[in-house]
């Protein structure tokens, strides 16, 4: 059941007007730059530093518990990282200036038009996460590197190449945005087919061509639509709509791409590893992950990569193969593999929700103190600097995590059934695989 939100004039006006989005963007950009500053110049104690607390606790909580599950790529529509580069690329901050960009404006190479690079960048960040999450200076370096890389890529390549092909966060937001109950779609595809100039893709005096290099008329899933609202501004036929819809609407159409399948494994596996590493009682595992360059860290690196790129996909492939045999399916194993990997999207999302609940509720108290004393310099701006650390809502944590994981499995089973119907393969072995993964996650969290 789809319901068009842009049918309300106020909603449409707010989304079409550049100012509301720009105001949010500027607040985000200010917060982002402040996080970098506090990382470089503030206290090296992570849980007392604004950069660490606001990026990895506050922002992460909002992103994974609210923004991604309910708004899909909603965060991408207000993310400040591409802004400076985009302003330079366009030679304008607000409306199109009407002349062509002065920079190279190259097309991104065809061979790299996939999310393998995003898989790589996320894996790299994940491998160093113990250091990034806890060391303000390293967080600042990573954030600064992202913004400078985005600027550099905007100078060389057209549109938002960084967001679409490099950003480690964008990759998994895109994957999980398929499950969100919000979408941007065209109202009537026939209108797009007869539209001559395609201003939604090429731009017009009313707005820029799709920064995400997507032709809205061909949109069938949320993965690569950044919800920037440019097409809403440029479409001369008012043919763009923002709709609410049932959860996981896109997942009824299983993916055929191996890069997207591996993104699902990376996210699922990383959530499991993090649950053990950050929330478990194993000090040697934490130290191994933190001691970058040491022998134990190399052991961690190998185990991380083998688990995510070897063990999980191999077990999953085995499950799909059994399903193929049970169904005497004629579909190629690769096709079944990628189709069923789509069913891991809800499971992975709920693994992250369950992990983040624990991580966020036990560390949220730091938000109050770092708000008043962002640099750890002894300030008390809002009178909250002395609020002591204390975990919050830990009594309902286990039931919430259980609900998230059991609900995620139910959701995955339903998605696997749809994928199975597409490729004519029994989903039962994939459901068994997902159940085993969920039980393992329960063991790590509870």
């Amino acid at each position: 059941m789809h319901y068009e939100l842009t049918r309300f004039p106020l909603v449409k006006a707010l989304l079409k007007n550049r100012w509301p989005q720009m105001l949010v963007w500027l607040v985000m950009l200010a917060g982002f730059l402040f996080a970098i500053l506090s990382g470089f110049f503030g206290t090296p104690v992570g849980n007392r530093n604004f950069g660490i607390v606001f990026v990895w606790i506050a922002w992460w909580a909002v992103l994974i518990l609210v923004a991604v599950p309910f708004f899909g790529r909603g965060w991408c529509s207000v993310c400040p990282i591409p802004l400076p580069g985009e302003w330079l690329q366009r030679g304008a901050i607000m409306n199109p200036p009407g002349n062509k960009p002065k920079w190279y404006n190259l097309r991104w190479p065809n061979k790299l038009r996939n999310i393998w690079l995003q898989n790589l960048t996320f894996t790299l960040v994940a491998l160093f996460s113990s250091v990034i999450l806890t060391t303000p200076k390293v967080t600042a370096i990573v954030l600064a590197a992202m913004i400078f890389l985005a600027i550099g890529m905007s100078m060389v390549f057209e549109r938002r190449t960084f967001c679409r092909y490099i950003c480690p966060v964008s990759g998994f937001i895109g994957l999980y945005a398929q499950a969100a109950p919000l979408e941007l779609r065209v109202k009537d595809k026939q209108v797009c087919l007869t539209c001559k100039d395609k201003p939604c893709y090429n731009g017009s005096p009313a707005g820029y061509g799709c920064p995400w290099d997507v032709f809205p008329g061909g949109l069938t899933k949320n993965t690569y639509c950044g919800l920037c609202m440019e097409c809403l501004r440029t479409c001369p036929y008012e043919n763009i709509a923002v709709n609410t819809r049932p959860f996981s609407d896109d997942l009824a159409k299983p993916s055929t791409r191996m890069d997207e399948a591996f993104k699902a494994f990376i996210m699922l596996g990383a959530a499991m590893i993090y649950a053990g590493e950050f929330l478990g009682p194993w000090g040697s595992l934490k130290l191994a992950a933190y001691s970058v360059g040491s022998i134990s860290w190399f052991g961690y690196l190998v185990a991380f990569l083998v688990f995510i790129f070897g063990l999980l996909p191999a077990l999953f492939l085995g499950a799909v193969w059994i399903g193929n045999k049970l169904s005497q399916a004629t579909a190629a194993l690769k096709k079944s593999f990628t189709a069923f990997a789509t069913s891991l999207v809800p499971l992975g999302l709920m693994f992250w929700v369950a992990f983040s609940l624990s991580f966020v509720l036990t560390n949220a108290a730091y938000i109050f103190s770092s708000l008043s004393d962002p640099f750890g310099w002894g300030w008390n701006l809002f009178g909250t600097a002395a609020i002591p650390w204390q975990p919050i809502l830990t009594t309902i944590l286990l039931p919430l995590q259980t609900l998230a994981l059991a609900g995620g499995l139910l959701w995955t089973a339903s998605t696997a059934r749809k994928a199975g119907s597409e490729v004519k393969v029994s989903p039962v072995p994939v459901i068994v695989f997902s159940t085993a993964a969920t039980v393992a996650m329960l063991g790590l969290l509870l």
Partner: protein
Amino acid sequence: MSKKKWIFGVLFVMAGAVIVFAPLPVRATPPTLRTFRIEASQFAYTPAVLAVNPGDTVTIELVSTDVVHGLYLDGYGVSVTADPGQTARLTFIADKSGSFRFRCNVTCGALHPFMIGKLQVGPNTWLWRAIVLTILAALVIPILRPNLPRARAG
């Protein structure tokens, strides 16, 4: 949704409620005094997992081997702080069953927020309930919507 599926759906919800809330037989063990010596160092407790019976009087002797560390016990809300080389004691009655994390509550270094241990009071019944609930969740779709793809004739 058909009437049959509604009935199955309601049955599944009821089964889930039974799994979560049904009282389980408790093996009564007379309360005893339990003392644990825990060494705290960046960023681990040794031992990191403690198991006691419900009703036991638990004393934790926390010894820090490097910097100042603390121990805060989730669910019980009690805590203790140990200076390097000093032994600090925390005594409480384990009157709540289940699995509880304990954490360092004195900033002790980079990985401080992740310095975690676990106290097990009685069997971890919530974990077992959660596992059974998960298996039930896995069965819902195959039972409620059994029209899985049929095997094709060779």
